[in-house]
């Protein structure tokens, strides 16, 4: 077990290095610094201004190898700054990136955590319900509804939610954010609802497939033959056995906790990491983008290692060696 964790973590680190290499290739080899400067400052800016921008951001060093001082290259800088979380300043407005990430995490989590937890619980619960009624019209209706839900663009969920609940019914404010808890709840209600509705169709359909597959297994027949009721079979036997695919799907959505929802945040005016990303896109802020992609990957890799360990808790057959 310990050997597995050590090996898995080591591999995780290698993947992190792979991610960094990929980012380097993207941001410094493919997109040359002068090109970034042109996008950041403007196409028509005079060459001196562009040069100055490049120098200011420290993008003027040799890419691979510096014969005068070997450590002073773009490559080394990139790896060093990323691995030490010293992300420097934004390409767009010179604000310190790490500070902004710290500030954005709170609002992002306050939006994504409820969506994530309620979403998983609701998804699993409703799909258990649908799977319980498999081969009946409730199940068929459920599947059709899920497909309908999955076919709508998130843009429409947001626009629809804002229009219907915010504007017509006036239950909640259309957008905005406030750090004080009571007000924040009012502001968060609508985006959380929209986020939940958007994800529900896909997750119910996925979990339903998992549950239906499990209910066809031999051990379910055994449980039935010993006198188990359908409800008990679902809750005690099927749910537990379905934990591995459920866990796997849950982990995939963990990076979303951090990156926040780009669309929800910017539509609803929540000053989180998603908004920050949107700003970075509009401001051609490559430094922020690079840092965000890196941190997202880092969290995802960590989450994957944790799930592997969690598998051993839910499934006694999984022995990590």
């Amino acid at each position, binding site marked *: 077990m310990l*050997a597995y964790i*050590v*090996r898995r973590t080591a591999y995780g680190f290698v993947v992190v290095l792979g991610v960094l290499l990929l980012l380097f290739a993207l941001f410094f080899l493919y997109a040359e610094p002068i090109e970034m400067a042109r996008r950041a400052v403007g196409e028509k800016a005079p060459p001196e201004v562009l040069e100055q921008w490049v120098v200011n951001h420290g993008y003027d060093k040799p890419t691979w190898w510096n014969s005068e001082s070997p450590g002073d290259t773009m490559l080394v800088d990139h790896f060093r700054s990323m691995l030490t979380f010293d992300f420097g300043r934004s390409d767009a407005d010179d604000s310190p990136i790490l500070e902004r990430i710290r500030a954005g995490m709170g609002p992002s989590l306050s939006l994504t955590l409820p969506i994530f937890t309620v979403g998983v619980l609701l998804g699993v619960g409703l799909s258990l319900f649908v799977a319980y009624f498999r081969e009946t019209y409730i199940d068929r209706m459920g599947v059709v509804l899920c497909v309908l839900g999955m076919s709508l663009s998130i843009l429409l969920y947001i626009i629809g939610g804002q229009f219907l609940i915010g504007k017509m019914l006036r239950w909640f404010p259309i957008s905005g954010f406030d750090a004080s808890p009571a007000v924040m709840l009012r502001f968060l209600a609508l985006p959380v609802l929209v986020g939940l509705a958007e994800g529900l169709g896909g997750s119910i359909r996925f979990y339903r497939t998992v549950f239906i597959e499990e209910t066809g297994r031999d051990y379910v027949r055994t449980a039935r033959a010993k006198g188990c009721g359908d409800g008990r079979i679902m809750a005690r036997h099927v749910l537990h056995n379905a934990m591995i695919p459920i866990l796997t799907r849950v982990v995939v959505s963990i990076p979303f906790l951090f990156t926040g929802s780009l669309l929800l945040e910017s539509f609803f005016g929540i000053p989180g990491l998603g908004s920050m990303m949107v700003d970075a896109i509009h401001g051609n802020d490559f430094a922020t983008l690079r840092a965000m992609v890196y941190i997202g990957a880092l969290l995802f890799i960590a989450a994957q290692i944790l799930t592997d360990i969690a598998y051993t808790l839910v499934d006694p057959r999984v022995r990590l*060696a």
Partner: protein
Amino acid sequence: MSAAIEGSPNACEPLLRVEGLRTWFPIRAGILQRTVGNVRAVDNIDFEVAAGETLALVGESGCGKTTVGRSLLRLVEPQAGRVLFDGVDLCTLSKRELIPYRSDIQIVFQDPMASLDPRMRVRDAIAEGMRSFGIGANAAERTERVAALLERVQLDPAWMSRYPHEFSGGQRQRLCIARALAVEPRLIVCDEATSALDVSIQAQILNLLRDLQQDLGLAYLFITHDLGVVRYLADRVAVMYVGEIVEQGPTEQIFERPSHPYTQGLLSAIPSTDPGRRGISARVIGDVPSPANPPDGCRFHPRCPQAFERCGRERPPTYFAGEGSSRCFLSDPAAG
């Protein structure tokens, strides 16, 4: 039967001789995934199959009999030992050198569902081997041969453009036999070829195999756990237990005068359909040990009703007596 004949050194040599065959699968663990042990699927076995003869390799699940079959064809790579086919050691050949010899040994698998490519028409499946060995000059000639083969295995040649899923289990097994016959092999490894079939269908396939042997002089290595089939079909029997051959001999001898306690236990556990003979005995107790961690001494001793102190200490050698051999101290002629 092309290239092998050239290499044939003398006529007395059996068609297939296996010496000291060993196929282990490594078990890896730890941070660096070092090999910490081996699954001793096939552990140093010897046997021979003469031309036109049927040798049955019998044993319970996990004893390594299937791995023997696949090692012969090098579908899994053996670690050590020699597989002499017509005097040529197949294990020393490179993959490329092996190809011409592949037509000599063919294999029929247990699961008729998994043995045929579901997306390939029967004609193409049977002709595939002919193409790789250049049998049949052109497509038309190969189709003609496919028709003949289908007839040979008692299927309607008109069905050759159908897909495997349109056939029943027994019919699919006939198709697999036809596919093997297409490249004119001299030895067919039947890996539990009739185990998945119903009794009435099994009888049809066994009769077919017997007819083919008489007509074409085929040799069979018949891998099975069903002793009833063995008694009906085999000339000689080799009994496997946890990677080793524990007893070998002519079929009559094995069934009438088994000398190894494992063979005796195995035979006494087969239920008969004769209503006058009822009451099998569960002489062999407990479960088959894992080939990853076989017991010391005689591998059968923890389950053996006749085990004594020496059995747990020492590994019995193979004692030869007459046409048979047994790996048990009780068979030691010196001990009387």
